[in-house]
């Protein structure tokens, strides 16, 4: 359950003025509703995700979430290129709040999901960009939360891994309470979400069934 009430978020600008990124947004997302954030670049999708994540503080209004969310904004956040894939999984797991023991228990699962072979134990600087993305993505196999906030990260690696990653995210989206995804890919949005929130210039243009919102947006 996510409740947003009269939410206004302002960015300070260099000239001392403020830019209103979200203005007076109110909505309630029921349990087991997965919401796609739709809108043009700069419409406030990422701002809303970051505010829900608790990293941006509202200028006015309030938000409440039924549990701590897992944020997936920058998939390779905290990747240490001079460390092995193995150690990177541990470090990332710690950042996500898992204990080292929990990570080590699940690390075989991460290793087999990533399909990196021996490279899993080699420094990340030796990886190709696709391999890095695989590693970063695979860590998600051992983390589960009630709420996920995802910003445009799906679509990594080659065709085969892509499908695997999609399936993983899909299983998370199906089993969690709320899954909020900002994306421009219509097919992905339809696969993952049952509700759509169309943001335009920081305001809610439409909130409702995903097909209705997408149809209105694409018109």
């Amino acid at each position, binding site marked *: 359950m996510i409740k947003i009430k009269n939410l206004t978020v302002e960015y300070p600008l260099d000239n001392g003025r403020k830019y209103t990124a979200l203005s007076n947004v109110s909505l309630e997302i029921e349990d087991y509703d997965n919401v796609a954030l739709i809108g043009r670049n700069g419409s406030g999708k990422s701002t809303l995700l*970051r505010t829900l*994540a*608790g990293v941006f503080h509202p200028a006015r209004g309030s938000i409440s979430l039924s549990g*701590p969310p897992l944020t997936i904004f920058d998939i390779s956040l905290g990747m240490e290129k001079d460390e092995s894939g193995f150690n990177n999984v541990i470090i990332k797991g710690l950042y996500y709040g898992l204990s080292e023991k929990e990570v080590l228990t699940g690390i075989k699962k991460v290793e087999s999901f990533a399909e990196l072979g021996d490279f899993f134990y080699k420094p990340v600087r030796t990886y190709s960009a696709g391999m890095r993305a695989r590693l970063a993505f695979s860590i998600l196999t051992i983390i589960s939360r009630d709420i996920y906030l995802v910003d445009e990260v799906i679509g990594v690696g080659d065709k085969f891994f892509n499908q695997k990653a999609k399936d993983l995210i899909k299983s998370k989206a199906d089993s969690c309470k709320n899954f909020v995804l900002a994306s421009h890919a219509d097919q992905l949005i339809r696969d993952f979400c049952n509700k759509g929130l169309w943001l335009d210039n920081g305001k809610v243009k439409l909130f409702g069934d995903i097909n209705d919102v997408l149809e209105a947006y694409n018109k």
Partner: protein
Amino acid sequence: MKFLASFFLIFNDIFKSLIIYKIWSRIALKTMFIKYNRSKLGFLWPFINSFFFAIAISVVFSEILNQDFSTYAPYLIAGFITWNFFSSIIAEQTTIFTANSSFLKELNYNLFFYIFKKSYELLFIFVINILIFIFLSICFFNQLTFDVLLLVINIPLIVFLSIFVAYVFAVINCFFRDFVFVMNNMMRLFFFITPILWHAENSDGIRAHLSMYNPFYYLINLIRDPLLSNDFNEINYIIYLCLLVFFYLLAVILFNRVNKKIVFYV
């Protein structure tokens, strides 16, 4: 009442980060030596950095300044490892928010999480340096007494002060990016005008002034005096307390006014 409470809001965030010490301390230990991964001597480097310079300078300067090596060397080494600790706090904590900007924008830890993680790294290296000094002192210099136990109080005092200093400097640096460069220059200057290479005791003229009006002198003495079994000097604690109040108040003002805006500036 509300005015009074505003002085303590900062402790909310401090405690929230303090209780998840398992997270930042593990991450600190896992990541602090990564930059030495590809070097042969690896994690020995931070310790070599501290002692190589200090010992070499002791040899040269005891000659130049006509000092007895066996008393000058421990004085300089103790002062130098302490100075290294202070200057690395200032150099690294000043950029702590800007350096962690991608974390700040994604994870829901408050700002003190990153300060604590860095403090833990720096303290870890400092404590090992102190232990190495104590070992050297016992083996070669023979002037250690039970005074050294005072460090059990004095090091935590320094760390406590450093949390507020770190926060104040890191916040200032978010708004004025020149600040870190100014501080780097200041620290280089202070290394020479603080009694580390030279003695302040029994001095007059410019030496006395440089030490009397220099806050680093008193802070260094909080660590150096117990290591050298110098007499207990309450002036060190009085200056410490003044600095603590000063930086605490600055931190409170910045916390209440701009803490929530920091993420937009990094």
